């Protein structure tokens, strides 16, 4: 059988069939008439004998076609026609679904791009990350001893001055071991990557540029390869340019500099950067083998150090896939968002299902007629489902448009340091997800109403002419849907409420300093410039002198690590009379090196004693500690007058002041967990960091009275006048520093609030719709009641009671759900219990108020029912 020919000749086949059947009936009638029947009776008898005419024709035609596909197309045409006819219904349903599907698609794009899509490196599944951090010495040992994987380390956050080419520029660099690029399998856009051994002293005078830097600073000049540039006063040869899409470890990196693995500089080698380590599994090694080997390595790694290491150091070290390691921080947040949008889609589905059910009341008769005409139940079911699938497909298409808009909005809303955010795009996986979601949505939305309608008793429906009374089952179903919808909305609003409470708590944390009217900037001479500590100190002294004479500056001071600035300066300290209970090692402090006046400029309150004065710079060695540190090392004693000493320093420092705690690490913690205390010392030649040098990277804090931008310009001018090789970077107000510290919770919170608002809106529409329908159904009953003397208050009570039933049930279910579900988000909450009673109570009250409002409009309509009009309808 040639099916193509068949398809084209089908028209004729059908015509033949109709004519043939008509002839059949005519012949029968003729015969019956001839046997003495009246023509009218004969026609009826012929039809009776023949059976279901429509069905016979349909069955006969069905022989010639691919039934499912063609029926489907027919259903689609029919569905499209119905939807076009009721454009308001269609618009609301499609829009609702589009919002739900769009939100899900946008968030799924994030989840997909960040958590699912494999890293953009060849055989990325073989890439792993070691969960501990290791200094150079341990890395070199690991590199030699590990057989299951090749390892490389990197240290982010090393900035370099680029000088000798116009204005001095501060570049963000990442120190890398020579194998990093080859392990990742990354190829340069230009030039070459590092070769093995090119991180050893004497062989490491190289630099690799990022595409962006090469383009902006060097005008995409291909002859840069092989040329030297001046970084921190050191000449380095440019050997390569990485392509624009190479963003390891993050987008911030502008240059990659080889590590300088020099065993002779003991402190750098064993106590410099504790670096994250990545690796590539060897061809026949497994993750388990690598884990076993790293544990083996760890068991003797501590012994390699020239000093005892605490037993807890990297104790639980393991090896995880690199992708998991990179995105661990955002995983929970993303999954929470996905859960939230999934709830929204559920609410949207419920709403649309309800809409369809409302329409079902009017369609019940149509369906009854169709089944009376011989349509099978399955056929009707399929046809009803097609309509909802059509709605969902339209919703999905519109949702894709929403998602594209939403995704670009999300990219700007989310913190810029979200890993892999730049890589997020809508790929085939997202499209498959959206398509699947739309189909699923269509089925979910359509199935319940379709089953409901197609089951409807035929004769019942036909009898209740025109009124289309919905059966009680459908009424119950609609009620259940509304309850579910309100419950979901309650759940989301509670989640958002908790986020808001947490965010409020976080942004009202007392950071321990006053951020208003403080302008900050990094002023960073070359490291070599500070080889001479006095020269370095004098330079900073001069900057301060220049600044303090400017109008609008009420004070200025330098600090090596700005609170919330993202940098920690660690230094082992001896505390007089303190012995570490767990054994041996000197406590690790966060050492702040500041110029006199710092506490006043930053508005950090002194709890006892004094801050630093100019006399302290050259006088007897002194220090200031924070309240938390004082409590920890001198519990129930006065810390004043006690002594501490920088490790390997000759003289003890006397504690002359205790300041209140400063949220320096983030807004939730004063310092990272591995830091034991926080101390401040005045900036002088004895104030050295771990590398036994005075800091050459200082941040200035300026308390201003006037326009910040003017001060910033004056600052640049003063520094350039003093030394044109010193760049001024990261110029920002302290307020901006603080708000950056809350940007991640801020974006999550605002997303949750948006989602909760959406859920609330959909929930209100839902309960309003159901109640309106209820009132219109019971207009006659209400009319009768009023005619019999019911007062307005009675009617009010009657309708509101219905609404309140839904709303209270929904709120109760929602509260229970929240009680069970919100603990999942406890890691994202600060200073708020996931079971915060205030939030629960508040949300319950708000929901009750809002749903009552939604009930009120239909109720008022019911109260206005004119009994005469209502009864006349009959």
């Amino acid at each position, binding site marked *: *059988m040639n099916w193509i020919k068949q398809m084209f000749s089908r028209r004729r086949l059908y015509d033949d069939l109709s004519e043939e059947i008509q002839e059949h009936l005519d012949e029968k009638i003729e015969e019956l008439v001839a046997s003495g029947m009246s023509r009218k009776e004969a026609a009826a008898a012929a039809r009776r004998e023949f059976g279901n005419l429509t069905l*016979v024709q349909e069955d006969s035609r069905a022989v010639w076609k691919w039934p499912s596909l063609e029926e489907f197309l027919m259903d689609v045409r029919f569905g499209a026609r119905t939807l076009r006819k009721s454009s308001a219904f269609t618009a609301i349903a499609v829009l609702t679904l589009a919002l739900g599907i769009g939100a899900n698609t946008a968030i799924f794009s994030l989840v997909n791009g960040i958590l699912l899509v494999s890293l953009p490196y060849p055989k990325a599944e073989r890439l792993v990350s070691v969960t501990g951090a290791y200094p150079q010495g341990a890395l070199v040992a690991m590199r030699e001893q590990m057989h299951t994987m090749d390892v490389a380390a990197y240290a982010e956050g090393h900035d370099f001055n680029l000088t000798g080419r116009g204005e001095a520029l501060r570049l963000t660099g990442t120190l890398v071991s020579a194998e990093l690029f080859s392990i990742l399998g990354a190829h340069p856009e230009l030039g070459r990557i590092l070769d093995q051994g090119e991180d050893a002293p004497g062989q490491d005078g190289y630099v690799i540029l990022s595409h962006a830097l090469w383009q902006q600073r060097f005008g995409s000049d291909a002859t840069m390869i092989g040329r030297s540039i001046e970084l921190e006063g050191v000449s380095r040869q440019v050997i390569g340019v990485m392509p624009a899409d190479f963003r390891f470890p993050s987008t911030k990196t502008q240059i990659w500099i080889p590590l300088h693995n020099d065993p002779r500089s003991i402190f750098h080698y064993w106590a410099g950067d504790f670096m994250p380590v990545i690796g590539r599994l060897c061809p026949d090694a497994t993750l388990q083998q690598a884990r076993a080997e790293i544990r083996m390595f760890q068991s003797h790694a501590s012994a390699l150090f020239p000093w005892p290491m605490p037993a807890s150091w990297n104790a639980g070290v393991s090896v995880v896939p690199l992708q998991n390691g990179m995105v661990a921080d955002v995983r929970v947040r993303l999954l929470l968002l996905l859960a939230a949008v999934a709830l929204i889609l559920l609410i949207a589905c419920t709403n649309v299902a309800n809409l369809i059910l409302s329409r079902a009341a009017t369609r019940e008769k149509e369906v009854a007629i169709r089944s009376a005409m011989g349509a099978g139940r399955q056929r009707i079911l399929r046809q009803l489902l097609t309509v909802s699938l059509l709605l969902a497909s339209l919703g999905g298409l519109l949702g894709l448009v929403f998602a594209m808009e939403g995704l670009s909005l999300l990219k700007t809303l989310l913190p810029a340091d979200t890993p892999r955010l730049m890589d997020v795009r809508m790929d085939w996986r997202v499209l498959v997800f959206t398509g699947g979601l739309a189909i699923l949505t269509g089925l979910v939305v359509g199935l319940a109403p379709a089953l409901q309608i197609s089951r409807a008793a035929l004769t019942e429906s036909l009898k209740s002419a025109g009124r289309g009374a919905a059966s009680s089952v459908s009424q119950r179903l609609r009620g259940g849907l509304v309850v579910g919808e309100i419950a979901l909305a309650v759940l989301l609003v509670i989640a958002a409420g908790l986020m808001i409470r947490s965010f409020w708590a976080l942004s009202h944390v007392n950071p321990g300093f006053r951020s208003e009217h403080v302008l900050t900037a990094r002023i960073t001479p070359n490291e070599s410039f500070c080889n001479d500590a006095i020269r370095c100190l004098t330079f900073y002294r001069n900057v301060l002198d220049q600044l303090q004479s400017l109008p609008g500056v009420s004070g200025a001071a330098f600090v090596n690590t700005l609170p919330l600035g993202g940098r920690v300066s660690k230094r082992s300290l001896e505390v007089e009379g303190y012995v570490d209970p767990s054994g041996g090692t000197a406590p690790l402090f966060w050492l702040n090196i500041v110029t006199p006046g710092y506490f006043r400029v930053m508005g950090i309150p002194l709890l006892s004693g004094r801050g630093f004065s100019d006399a302290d710079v050259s006088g007897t060695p002194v220090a200031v500690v924070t309240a938390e540190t004082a409590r920890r090392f001198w519990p129930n004693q006065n810390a004043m007058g006690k002594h501490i000493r920088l490790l390997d320093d000759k003289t003890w420092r006397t504690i002359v002041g205790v300041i209140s705690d400063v949220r320096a690490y983030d807004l939730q913690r004063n310092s990272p967990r591995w830091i034991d205390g926080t101390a401040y010392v005045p900036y002088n030649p004895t104030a050295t960091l771990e590398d036994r040098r005075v800091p050459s990277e200082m941040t200035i804090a300026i308390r201003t009275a006037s326009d910040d931008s003017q001060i910033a310009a004056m600052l640049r001018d003063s520094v350039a006048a003093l030394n044109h090789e010193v760049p001024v970077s990261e110029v920002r107000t302290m307020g901006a520093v603080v708000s950056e510290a809350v940007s991640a919770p801020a974006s999550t919170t605002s997303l949750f609030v948006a989602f909760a608002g959406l859920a609330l809106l959909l929930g209100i529409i839902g309960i309003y719709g159901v109640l309106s329908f209820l009132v219109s159904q019971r207009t006659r009953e209400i009319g009768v009641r009023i005619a019999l003397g019911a007062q307005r208050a009675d009617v009010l009570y009657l309708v509101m009671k219905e609404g309140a039933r839904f709303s209270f049930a929904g709120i109760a279910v929602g509260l229970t759900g929240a009680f069970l579900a919100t603990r999942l988000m406890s890691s994202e909450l600060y200073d708020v219990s996931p079971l915060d009673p205030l939030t629960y109570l508040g949300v319950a009250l708000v929901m009750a108020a809002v749903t009552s409002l939604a009930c009120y409009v239909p109720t008022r309509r019911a109260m206005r029912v004119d009994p005469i009009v209502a009864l006349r309808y009959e």
Partner: protein
Amino acid sequence: MKNREQRDLFPGALEMMILRTLKRQPLHGYALVQHIKRTSNDLLQIEEGSLYPALQRLLKEELVKAEWAVSSTNRRVRIYKLTAAGAKHLQRQVSSFERMLEGITRVLARGES
């Protein structure tokens, strides 16, 4: 809908009867159904319409072919003829039906004794 399955006796029975009738002589639809009804002494309650889907199936499988013609009563009718394939098909169907019937009869006979 429900009675259609009862009416069909067993799948293929109606087709077999149509083919058998057409083997004797080409007929148009109405005559065909009257003939089947008459020869079965009206024992088989066939809805006249049910003939047409069956005829379409046979047409599709090219077991019969149809041609428009004018009948003796001066009526435009579509005459169905058995094709060679149809004749062969009928033979196969009848023999397998006879085997089946024989089997059923034996079982029924044994059950009685």
